[in-house]
């Protein structure tokens, strides 16, 4: 076959050691998640469904909740901004920094700032913008992009990382993970202390209290908000939840789904700038609520995807992600969540990503692990339909109109079933059907026995 699916091609070209490391880490994360949930909760699925309903409820009333959250934040002295798309968000953030003369920025891991490519934008404008999450730091020094929501460098091995550290002057080659981590610790803490602003995302925003919730394992978000006076949180509008109380649902699910921990090491709840007597921490706090296509998705038939809490469990369990790795998806979000979210976020560029929803056997493993029970396979199907309706051709897929023609004419169908037995007489490699030839490259086909059952059914003597 000439045309091939880009994700399949990417998977086929993946070096063996990389594939096995992605596969291995995904398997390990999947089983940790399962144990963490099953050990602790007799009815973990009820918890997932509850989380789904709370999130769906919030999305269905997002105007009300976003308004409430904004009001609380403003009461508490937080400056709240709204950006309708990426460029607006970037220039808004740049402006806030420029007005305060902040040039040295430390950043905690945030998918939404990846989504709007904030780093490059600020660096191009002469600012120093440093990723502090260990994985994201390595991504940054390598000029790479993250390949997993939770484990951004799951595609790299320790030797590659040690080489990068050596190249960046962080010490002579040493690929011991402990040494790598200590070197990053020393290098980064100096930069935290000299920083003038910290940028983070947010995992949740509670509408009733205006509480911003941030989780990290490394403590980097805390460190990004201790030595400098300015904090900017960039937040997708779908991060709102109704009440503080609901955090009990989401915090229990997030860490277990992501890493198999019961709670992430640092779970931070902010309602504004630091307390008056506190010597360290931001005196000024900004929240930038980002739309960037989310309100459009909310009006579509894939609105449930906005329930996502970015845990990465669907990536870990996905057999296609395991074979292809995150970079195959050509976007910030890989795996099942990316296969849905990327084409949706792309808006007018939908066609460029219309192949992503095809990259699934529709096995449904993603939905089974998703802490907010997103029916991902249903959305993949809806997006395939959208692509088909838009006339976007999909390489490798046979056309379906002839099949529908045959399958709605029972007499012809029965005839074809029997007549096709003739195909058994022809060597299958000679049949001029591309889909069949693609099948036969890897597999044999059983003998054609069309009509035999019908004959048996019609002629047998009932017991």
């Amino acid at each position, binding site marked *: 076959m000439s045309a091939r699916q880009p994700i399949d091609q990417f998977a086929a070209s993946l070096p063996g050691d990389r594939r096995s490391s992605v596969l291995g880490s995904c398997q390990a994360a999947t089983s940790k998640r399962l144990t963490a949930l099953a050990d602790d909760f007799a009815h973990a699925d009820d918890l997932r469904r509850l989380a789904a309903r709370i999130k769906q409820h919030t999305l269905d009333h997002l105007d009300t909740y*976003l308004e409430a959250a904004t009001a609380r934040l403003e009461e508490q002295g937080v400056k709240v901004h709204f950006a309708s798309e990426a460029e*607006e968000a970037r220039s808004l953030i740049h402006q806030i920094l420029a007005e305060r003369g902040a040039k040295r920025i430390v950043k905690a891991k945030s998918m939404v700032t990846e989504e709007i490519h904030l780093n490059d934008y600020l660096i191009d404008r002469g600012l120093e913008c440093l990723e502090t999450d260990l994985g994201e730091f390595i991504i940054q020094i390598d000029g790479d992009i993250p390949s997993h929501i939770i484990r951004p460098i799951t595609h790299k091995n320790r030797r590659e990382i040690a080489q990068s550290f050596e190249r960046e002057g962080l010490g002579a080659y040493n690929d011991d993970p402990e040494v790598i981590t200590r070197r990053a610790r020393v290098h980064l803490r100096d930069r935290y202390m000299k920083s003038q602003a910290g940028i983070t995302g947010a995992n949740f925003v509670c509408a009733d209290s205006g509480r911003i919730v941030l989780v990290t394992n490394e403590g980097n978000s805390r460190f990004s908000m201790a030595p400098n006076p300015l904090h900017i949180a960039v937040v997708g509008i779908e991060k709102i939840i109704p009440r503080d109380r609901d955090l009990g649902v989401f915090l229990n699910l997030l860490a277990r789904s992501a890493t198999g921990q019961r709670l992430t090491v640092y779970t931070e709840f*902010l309602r504004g700038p630091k307390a008056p007597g506190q010597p360290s921490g931001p005196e000024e706090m900004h929240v930038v609520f980002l739309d960037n296509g989310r309100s459009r998705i909310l009006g579509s038939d894939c609105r449930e995807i906005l329930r996502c809490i970015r845990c990465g469990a669907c990536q870990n369990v996905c057999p296609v992600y395991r074979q292809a790795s995150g970079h195959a998806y050509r976007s910030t979000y890989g795996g099942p969540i990316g296969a849905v979210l990327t084409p949706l976020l792309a808006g007018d560029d939908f066609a460029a990503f219309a192949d992503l929803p095809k990259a699934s056997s529709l096995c449904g493993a993603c939905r089974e692990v998703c802490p907010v029970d997103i029916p991902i396979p249903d959305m993949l199907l809806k997006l395939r339909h959208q692509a088909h309706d838009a006339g976007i051709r999909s390489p490798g897929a046979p056309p379906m109109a002839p099949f529908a023609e045959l399958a709605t004419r029972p007499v012809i169908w029965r005839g074809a079933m029997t007549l096709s037995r003739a195909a058994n007489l022809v060597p299958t490699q000679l049949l001029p059907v591309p889909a069949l030839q693609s099948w036969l490259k890897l597999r044999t086909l059983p003998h054609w026995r069309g009509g035999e059952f019908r004959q048996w059914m019609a002629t047998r003597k009932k017991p």
Partner: protein
Amino acid sequence: MDGHPEEAMNRNDLFQKLRASAPASPEPYPDYDDAMLLSRTGHPTDLEASFRQQFTSINGYAFDSPGPLISLLRATANTRGYCDPALFPILGQPLADAGLEVSTLYHRSRYDDYQFGITRASGAIAETGTLILTDEQTSDRLAALSPWVHVAVLDPATIAPSIPEAIKRFGSSVNIIWVTGPSRTADVEGILIEGVHGPGVQVAYLSPVLSWTAPASPSF
């Protein structure tokens, strides 16, 4: 709002779009009982014992007298550090008496000199072995973050049984942080390493609040 006119427009625009996309039959807020959020360890009978057990299981050290802490600090060669002045009488003094260098001032410029930091915890969660710090009661965020060893002085009476209960006790603090074990990463080949940016050793020092007295004078 900062008063940028285009931002006001964005805001109105966005809310209009959100209202327009509200579904015909919205999902109601689900009725649920906090009991379903409790994990296997969410019903502790002895709060202090459960906290200790969970805290230890995530590689934390729980002490209730200076001796073992002094031994740990010596054994790991973390002999210079900071102590919240309010905690100096109960813990700083015994450490100083044992020959450790204890300062009640945290100088940012010397952040690397503090090998341990003693600050106050505002509470804890027995279910998960979590320490709760608040801006109002932490003498310096950095002192609880930059040293290799963080010692949180915890009044056992402030331990909450579970996550939902700890949420109920949020109160009015502007900044609460839950710390569940030492800072960690598994970014490099999935291998767990403790002590990335924050402390590599997390200590809970359990001490009833009644023994706390007025700040003492700094030393170093």
